[in-house]
C-alpha cells in the first residue's frame, strides 16, 4: 500500500534538507580537500564531500551516529511524531556503520564499544519511546532497503509509523581501498560524464517518517510525498561490479508493486556514481526501460558525493522536493554525456520545470544489492 512521507530531514555537505535541495538547484558541488582526519598520501584520495568539522554537533564524536541523531530528531519533529504515543519502529540503513570509530579505537585506543557499531542507542536518544531499532548494513542501497522493510511493516500493521534513516561517514579503510583501486585521484563526481574519474565519498544522513496515511497531529507539517513501492533485488553476480539484469529486476519489481509502468513515471533520480562501470550500465538500463520516452533524469552525487547508506533516502527526499517545488535540480558536474545516455533526457546546467507526479529513485550497492523506489507527489 502507498505510505505517506510525513516528515523528513537531511544533512549533507551542502547543508540541511532545504539547503541541500537549493544547493543542487544552484549547481553547487560540496567537493573539497579531504578532511583533516585523513592524510591524502596515506589513502591515495585527495578529495571528498565531507561535512565541515566545525559544523554544529560534530566535534569529537562518532560522526555517523551524530548525524543520524540529528536527522531522526528533525524528521520526527516535522511530523510531530511522539514515539511514546504510537508504535514507532526505526530502521537505519548504513554502509560503514560506525567503523570509523572502530578504526580509531584500534589505532589509537580511542574509547569505543561493540554496542556503538550499530545505532540503537543514538536513535533511542533522538526518538524516546521507539519500540525497536534495526541497523541494516546494505552498502550503498542501505536506506532504500530500509524503506522497503518499513513499507512492509506498515502493510502488516506492525507499526503506526516507521522512521527510516540512512547515515554514513568516511572510514580510513574504505578510502584506502578506493585509493588503491583508482588510477588517478578524482576531484569531483561527474555522473554520466565522459570525463568522469570515479566516485568520491560523501558524508551525510537522511531520515523520513513513513506512515500509512497523512498525519492529522497538531504541529505536523504537510506531507512531503507518498512512497508507492520499493523494488528489491540482488545481482548474485559480482562482489563489486554492477549487473544489468539485477538492476532491471529491481526496477520491474518497483513498477509491479506499485501497479504502474515506466510510462507513468515523470522523473528519475539516478544512482549516478560517476564510476566507469555504474553509469553506462545504469544509463543503458534506464534507456531500455523508458524506450524513446523523454523523462527528465537527474542525479545528486555531483553535489553531495556518494553518501553511501544515506544516498537512497537523500535522492528520495530530493525527488519529492522536486515534485513539490516544480523544479528538478541539474546534474552537477555533467558536461558531456556518455554515449549510453544519449537516449536519456539528462538535466544539465539549470533546474528544469517539472510537473511529474511519480518519480523513480535508483540505489545500487556493493555486492549487487539493488533498491528502486517509486515516490509520488503529496496528494
Amino acid at each position, binding site marked *: 500500500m502507498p505510505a505517506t512521507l510525513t516528515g523528513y530531514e537531511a544533512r549533507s555537505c551542502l547543508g540541511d534538507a532545504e539547503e541541500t535541495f537549493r544547493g543542487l538547484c544552484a549547481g553547487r558541488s560540496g567537493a573539497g580537500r579531504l578532511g583533516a582526519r585523513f592524510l591524502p598520501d596515506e589513502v591515495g584520495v585527495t578529495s571528498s564531500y565531507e561535512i565541515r568539522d566545525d559544523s554544529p554537533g560534530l566535534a569529537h564524536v562518532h560522526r555517523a551516529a551524530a548525524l543520524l541523531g540529528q536527522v531522526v530528531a528533525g524528521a520526527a519533529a516535522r511530523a510531530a511524531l511522539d514515539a511514546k504515543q504510537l508504535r514507532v519502529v526505526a530502521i537505519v540503513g548504513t554502509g560503514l556503520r560506525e567503523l570509523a570509530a572502530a578504526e580509531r579505537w584500534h589505532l589509537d585506543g580511542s574509547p569505543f564499544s561493540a554496542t556503538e557499531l*550499530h545505532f540503537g542507542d543514538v536513535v533511542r536518544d533522538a526518538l524516546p519511546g521507539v519500540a525497536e531499532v534495526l541497523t541494516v548494513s546494505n552498502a550503498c542501497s542501505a536506506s532504500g532497503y530500509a524503506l522497503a522493510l518499513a513499507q512492509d511493516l506498515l502493510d502488516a500493521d506492525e507499526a503506526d509509523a516507521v522512521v527510516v534513516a540512512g547515515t554514513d561517514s568516511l572510514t580510513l579503510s574504505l578510502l584506502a581501498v578506493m585509493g588503491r583501486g583508482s588510477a588517478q585521484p578524482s576531484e569531483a563526481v561527474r555522473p554520466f560524464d565522459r570525463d568522469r574519474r570515479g566516485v568520491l565519498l560523501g558524508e551525510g544522513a537522511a531520515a523520513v517518517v513513513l506512515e500509512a496515511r497523512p498525519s492529522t497531529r497538531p504541529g505536523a507539517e504537510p506531507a512531503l510525498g507518498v512512497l508507492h513501492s520499493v523494488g528489491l533485488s540482488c545481482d548474485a553476480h559480482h562482489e563489486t561490479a554492477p549487473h544489468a539484469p539485477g538492476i532491471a529486476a529491481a526496477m520491474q519489481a518497483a513498477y509491479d508493486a506499485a501497479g504502474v509502468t515506466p510510462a507513468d513515471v515523470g522523473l528519475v533520480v539516478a544512482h549516478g556514481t560517476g564510476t566507469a562501470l555504474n553509469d553506462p550500465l545504469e544509463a543503458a538500463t534506464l534507456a531500455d526501460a523508458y524506450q524513446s520516452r523523454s523523462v527528465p533524469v537527474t542525479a545528486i552525487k555531483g553535489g553531495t558525493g556518494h553518501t553511501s547508506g544515506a544516498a537512497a533516502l537523500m535522492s528520495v527526499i530530493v525527488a519529492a522536493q522536486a515534485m513539490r517545488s516544480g523544479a528538478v535540480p541539474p546534474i552537477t558536474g555533467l558536461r558531456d554525456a556518455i554515449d549510453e545516455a544519449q537516449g536519456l533526457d539528462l538535466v544539465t546546467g539549470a533546474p528544469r520545470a517539472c510537473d511529474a507526479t511519480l518519480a523513480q529513485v535508483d540505489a545500487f550497492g556493493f555486492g549487487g544489492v539493488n533498491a528502486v523506489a517509486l515516490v509520488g507527489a503529496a496528494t
Partner: protein
Amino acid sequence: MSRAHVVVRGTAVHVPGLAPDALADVVRVEPDACSAEDAHKVLGRKGLLYKEQATRLALCAAQRALGLPPGRVTTPVPGAERTAVVVSSNLGNLETVCTIAATVRTAGYRDVSPLQTPNASSNVIASTLAIRFGLTGPNVMLCNGATSGADAVRVAARLLRARRADRALVVGVEPDDEISSRLLAQGDDSQEARPLTAAAGALVLERADDPAGEDLLVTSAGVVPPGAGLPAAPVAEPGQLLLVAAGLAPHPHHDGSLVVDLTARIGETYGAHGVLQAALAAAWLRQLPAERRTASAGAVCGNAADGYASLALRRGPAPVAHIPAQQPVAAVLATAGRA
C-alpha cells in the same frame, strides 16, 4: 498483507570444535563442523581466497541448510531467483577493517591488497552467499547487536509474508578473532563479557499458505528495548524447549522444560546467537517422537545494552487464529517480568 505461515525447511548449526556432549541433551549436532581454514572440505577449493572467517563459516552453514552435498556449487540452487538472503553478523569484517586501517597508517594504501576491497563493505557475507548459490531475491545484512540473530529471523519472515520472496536463507555468524573479542569486551560489565566462539547457524524458511501438520512454524516474535525488562516467555506451556539469553534464568512457569543457556554451553556467539537458537529449536522439534504431535520451542536473545528479542517455533497443526509476526510491544512489556 498476507497472513501466510512461515515454515522451517532446513537448518544447520556449524560450530567448529564443539564438544561432542555440549548439546547432546538438545539435539545431535554434526560433530565435525570444519574450521574456516578447512572450509574447502565443504565448499570446494575455488572462490575462497581472501574470504573472511565469518564468510566461510556462513557458506558452510548455508550449504548444509540448503541440503546440498559437499563440493562447489556451480549452478543456482532450485528456486534461487525467488530466494532472499538475510544475514546477521556484527563483527564479520571488523578484523579486516582494522587491519587495513593499520596497514594504511604504517605503510600507506599501496600495501592494501585490492582483493580486500569487498571485505571493506559490511554486507560482504550476505552478497557472497547470494553469489555462490545464485540467490537473486532481496539480500539483507543486519548488524544489530545482541538481538541481531532473532531480528534476522523476523525480517526474513516479513519478506516472505510481504511476498518479496518465496524462500529465505537466514544465517547468523560471528568470528572469534582477537580484535573482535577485544572490542566485544570493551565497555561491557565483566559479567557479560565472554570470549567469542566462531559459529554459524542457518535456517531455510518458506512461506506456506496451508502448512502440513508436521511442518515447523515460526509462530511469534517480539522485542523489548533496553531498560524495559525482559520479554514475556515465548512459549506458554511447560515441558517444552526454552533457549534463554546469556545468564538469564528461565521463567518460573517452565518447570519440566528443557532450559538451555547456549552461551554457557558453547560461548559468546553475539549476532549469531538468535539464529543458532532458532536452528536448534527447529532441530529439537523435528526429532521429537511422532506421537508427540504438538510441541513448542522458544528462544530469547539479547543483552542489557541492546534489549531482548524472542522467537517461538511450533510443531503441530497450525493455530486457527494466526499469531502476528510481532506481538504489540505494549503487550509484551505488560507481561514482561524479571525471570
